[in-house]
């Protein structure tokens, strides 16, 4: 653990129902288990499902604000193409983007009133050339459970943070139902291999 007062800022975004809150809960617990001070906040709109969701995770020696400043995110982990663009200004000049290659159509698009932009990934890569783009749904299908997409991306994210892999493994084991541990650990390590 680095002993300076650096605070890590991870912004996780997407659409309600994608497992964003769970992913950020696990990341928060991992950082705490490693000995960091942690603050985490999420805003999840009014509806149970389908709204834009963002979760802020911050950790370091001491953390005051639970929300990340615009321009302060070290990593923007996005589970949906458009949502990446919506929260893009939170990313710092040197920030990384990890993107799930998925489109979920907002109401104005599925009702035919507005188009879903076609060049989202190109525009993100124009700003952040080393953006990691992974089709999480396909990877999850390959692993054998469509619901592990969030843990695959937690695996990718872990490559960009300084917390040892054992801490993630320990927290995943503690926070999941026993029968789901193996498949999620597999998903986590698959994610790590995709990051490199």
């Amino acid at each position, binding site marked *: 653990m680095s002993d300076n007062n650096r605070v890590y800022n991870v912004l996780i975004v997407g659409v309600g129902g994608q497992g964003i809150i769970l992913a950020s809960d696990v990341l928060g617990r991992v950082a705490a288990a490693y000995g960091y001070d942690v603050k985490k*906040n999420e805003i999840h*709109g*009014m509806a149970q499902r*389908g709204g834009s969701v963002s979760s802020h995770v911050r950790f370091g020696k001491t953390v005051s*604000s639970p929300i990340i400043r615009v321009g302060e995110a070290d990593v923007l982990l996005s589970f949906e193409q458009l949502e990446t663009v919506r929260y*893009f*200004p*939170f990313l710092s000049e040197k920030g990384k983007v990890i993107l799930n290659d998925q489109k979920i159509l907002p109401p104005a698009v599925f009702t035919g009133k507005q188009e879903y932009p076609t060049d989202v990934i190109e525009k993100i890569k124009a700003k952040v050339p080393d953006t990691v783009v992974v089709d999480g749904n396909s990877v999850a299908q390959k692993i054998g459970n469509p619901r592990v997409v969030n843990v695959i991306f937690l695996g990718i994210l872990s490559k960009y943070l300084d917390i040892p892999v054992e801490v993630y493994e320990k927290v995943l084991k503690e926070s999941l139902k026993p029968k789901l541990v193996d498949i999620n650990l597999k998903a986590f390590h698959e994610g790590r291999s995709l990051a490199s």
Partner: protein
Amino acid sequence: MKQLLSGNEGIARGAYEYGVRLASAYPGTPSTEIMEYVGERYPEIKAGWAPNEKVALEVAAGAAYGGARAMACMKHVGLNVAADPFMTLSYTGVNGGLVIVVCDDPEMHSSQNEQDTRNFAKFGKVPCLEPSDSQEAKDLVGEALKISEMFDTPVILRSSTRVSHSMSLVETQDRAEGPKELGLKKDPMKFVMLPAMARKRHPVVEQRQKDVASFADTFSHNRIIMNDDSLGIIAAGIAFQYAREALPNASFLKLGMSWPLPENLIREFASKVKRLVVIEELDPIIEDAVKLMGIKVEGKELTGLCGELSPEKVEIALMGSSKAKSIGPIDMELPLRPPNMCPGCPHRATFTALKKNKVYVAGDIGCYTLGALPPVGMLDNCLCMGAGIGIAAGLDRSLGELAKGKAVAVIGDSTFFHSGMTPLLELAYNGGSTTVVIMDNRTTAMTGAQPNPGMGFTLRNDPTISADIEKIAGAFGFKRIRTVSPYNVKETEDTIREELQADEPSLIIARAPCALLKTDRILSDKPLRIKADVCKGCKSCINTGCPALEFVKIDEPAEGDKRKGYSRINEALCVGCRTCQEVCKFDAIEEAS
């Protein structure tokens, strides 16, 4: 070991550790989870959902009168509903500690206004404590109960969305019971607020306010943190954390109690710093009080009155710019992603039937408020919980023929029990021809499916009564009461039409469980599909606004195909409610194989 807890988990934990014997609440974002955690984790606490916040506070007051430590929880607008008991509880005082947890929602993430609860503390002359993280949320429940018992007053614990829904590390401890002797104690001079007694209590309230203000000067959660003396910031709650983040070198007067204010401490801090600024969200409660002390201070001219603050807003307000270097926006026209009724939502079916009747709809607060948004667009006003029935009655009676047969009130089941019964009684009593539709989805859906008195079970899943809406309306004197299944859109549409034509008040109960509920499920969960060649592209199904439907544009039509596009169903999202099938005039929708 420290645990990572949300502010709401911290408050629930605080209730447990500091000996709360009874807790009562009505769900409301961002306060809901407090009572859910109490229900799940702390069987030592007698706990339950009340039909509304007024009742929740009265139940908690009863426990406190009997010497027990008690807690009532609500969102900011819930205190409006509970304002009547609140204002006079200040006069009677308590006995056992009483903490009223009120969670504000600056920025209105999930609320109809952003009123500042500290005004109620000032109005009711009741102390107000404000946590800035989860540890303080837990600790200040204990302090609130102590102050409540020490000064014989209810105490507000004011949280906000960013405190309630943020997680941070919390040190926990064991439970200790409250110090007061329990029992029924007669003391009419204190507890019976007849004018003669109340006149004696008012000076007690005024003296108490002074006593609490002196106590505030030495209260351990009001503390000075001296750094660079060129800038001194007074802040409480989440605003303190934002200011600390943005200006780590500044000096701080951190207030754990934001009403009444510690005058000596404020004077001491003001004398130590060159520039004094109050950073607070919403109203200038602290700033105005400091100005009344004759102290020069800046505040709202820097931070504004509307919306929530953030670290960068504070940084820009005081320093002119933010140190964080943003990569900047991506230039792109971005479709919004507003919340939406879920696939299979019974409200969508009811709104479809209302739309066919081309009515004006007076509504209120619940998932069905989302019926105001396009493409549904069928909710025409939303004022507060329970308001739609009275508003529809007022329109009906005052506009005569202009409104007759054209205005409907809608209300959910939980909202009906919360504050819809008295306006329904008014309708029966004063008459008119208003039609009310109770959209009974068998839960309190908007806040995450909490049980209500119509459901037959309690907070802790214990079996209980199931209040019968039809019988309630019948007992009120309603003669026209109809019950429909909203998914039978045609039948619902016809029923609404018939009741709109009636010359007396009528009630329609559109009953089907929330599509997210796993119990009492009537949905088939068998997805439908659209025969692309049969679909005429008329968008009747699309205009129900179901997220499982998609309009697919035809860019290069085949010879003779005049359609601009056709509809498609996302089978992964469809739960088979058949509302789209009911509105399709071309038999283009069938069960997917």
